């Protein structure tokens, strides 16, 4: 018995798509994304619909890359940051596909990979499955913080919700970028209730997941070309390394945080880094998966980090619950 799940039948990622907004395009990874929109509106008249369009665009890009029509997909796992996940339902309903909506805050991308892998490896009826996750800075600001035009300052530990979306398409298969193992996150209450320090709220969950994973698998971080975290940011990444140190685990230069990679702190006033479920989704699809396709990386561990909370729970002083699901990917001949 254990927490790490090994799929009975091997599942591979056969296509990917990423779309981002203006500030993400201006960041260090800008040129790698499949699509960007300077206006952040993606042709929609509200920010909520814009996030839906972001997801629709990411899915279309992934389908185009594989030269397939959406009708080949049997199931779609999708999620976003908005109340009741309306970005996903609004943006993806026109495809007419069987749909499972997910909410894992910023951990939704890996949560989706985990669900898609379990579904494909256990149900022969499914042949191809899609995972789409998005976040939009404007929609998130409106819902979680303050109106966009409100003038205020952010604290140094605050993070910036990325305007980004990513989509991967999966099928059963033995070659290419394959899912090796998956592990669900545990809900960890670190006692942090400051929404301006999400890194600190999520780091205990990240540490919990990595400790469980490495102790159960007997592996060490250097067994991977990269240990990728979703959006711990600079603050959360430093805390994670402090939390792992007493257990004799050091991620060292294997650690890459998508929230840190997405923006250039010298040019962009991003504070602790990017966040949002589009963060790890877009960076995985634009940076890590292509590296694996080119065999520059052979094995990576993807761990998304989510802060489970709502505007009401924050105002009531409730603790932010962290969660960090893991999926490991490897390139197979």
């Amino acid at each position, binding site marked *: 018995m254990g927490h790490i799940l090994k799929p009975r039948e091997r599942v591979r990622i056969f296509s990917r798509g990423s779309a981002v907004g203006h500030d993400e395009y201006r960041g260090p990874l800008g040129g790698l994304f499949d699509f960007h929109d300077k206006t952040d509106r993606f042709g929609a008249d509200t920010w909520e619909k814009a996030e839906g369009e972001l997801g629709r665009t990411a899915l279309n890009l992934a389908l185009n890359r594989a030269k397939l029509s959406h009708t080949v997909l049997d199931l779609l796992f999708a999620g976003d940051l908005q109340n009741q996940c309306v970005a996903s339902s609004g943006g993806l309903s026109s495809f007419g596909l069987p749909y499972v909506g997910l909410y894992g805050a910023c951990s939704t991308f890996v949560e989706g990979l985990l669900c898609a892998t379990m579904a494909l490896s256990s149900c022969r009826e499914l042949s191809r499955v899609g995972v789409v996750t998005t976040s939009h*800075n*404007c929609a998130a600001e409106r819902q979680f913080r303050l109106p966009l035009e409100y003038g205020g300052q952010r604290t140094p530990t605050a993070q910036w919700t990325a305007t980004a979306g990513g989509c991967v398409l999966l099928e059963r298969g033995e070659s290419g970028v394959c899912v090796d193992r998956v592990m669900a996150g545990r809900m960890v209450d670190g006692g942090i209730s400051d929404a301006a320090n999400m890194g600190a709220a999520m780091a205990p969950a990240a540490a919990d997941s990595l400790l469980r994973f490495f102790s159960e698998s007997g592996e060490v971080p250097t067994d991977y070309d990269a240990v990728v975290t979703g959006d711990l940011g600079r603050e959360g990444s430093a805390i994670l390394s402090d939390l792992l140190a007493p257990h004799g685990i050091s991620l060292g230069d294997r650690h890459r945080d998508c929230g840190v990679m997405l923006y250039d702190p010298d040019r962009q006033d*991003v504070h602790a880094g990017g966040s949002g479920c589009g963060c790890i989704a877009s960076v995985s699809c634009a940076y890590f998966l292509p590296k694996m396709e080119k065999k520059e990386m052979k094995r990576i561990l993807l761990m998304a980090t989510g802060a489970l909370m709502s505007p009401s729970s924050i105002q009531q002083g409730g603790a932010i619950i962290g969660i960090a699901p893991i999926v490991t990917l490897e390139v197979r001949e």
Partner: protein
Amino acid sequence: MSLFFDCLFAFLVGGALCVIAQLLIDLTRLTPARILVTYVSVGVLLGAVGLYEPLYEFAGCGVSVPLIGFGGTIARGVRAAVHESGLLGALTGGLQAAAGGTAAAIVFGYLAALLSKSRPKRL
């Protein structure tokens, strides 16, 4: 010359009131909304104990432009209304005195909503 000194005192006192709020935000993690509420309430209190008027004489817009002035105006309006119409004035005076600023914010806010659209924040 008196205009120069009026402006100088307004600058110094107004700036100092902003610095106090900035210190509260940065050092105590009080949210801006709580600070504004505190400033308005302090303004009413200063008006009630008779300190607002002397401060205004000294610093002019240095105290009346910060939100303390909003509170001071409310206190003054309440006092005048109580003189005029007794206990009922306690209810009518505050809003009467604050009417100009509040209505201006509502009208311009509504116009702004009609004429402009929300823009993304930029890094």
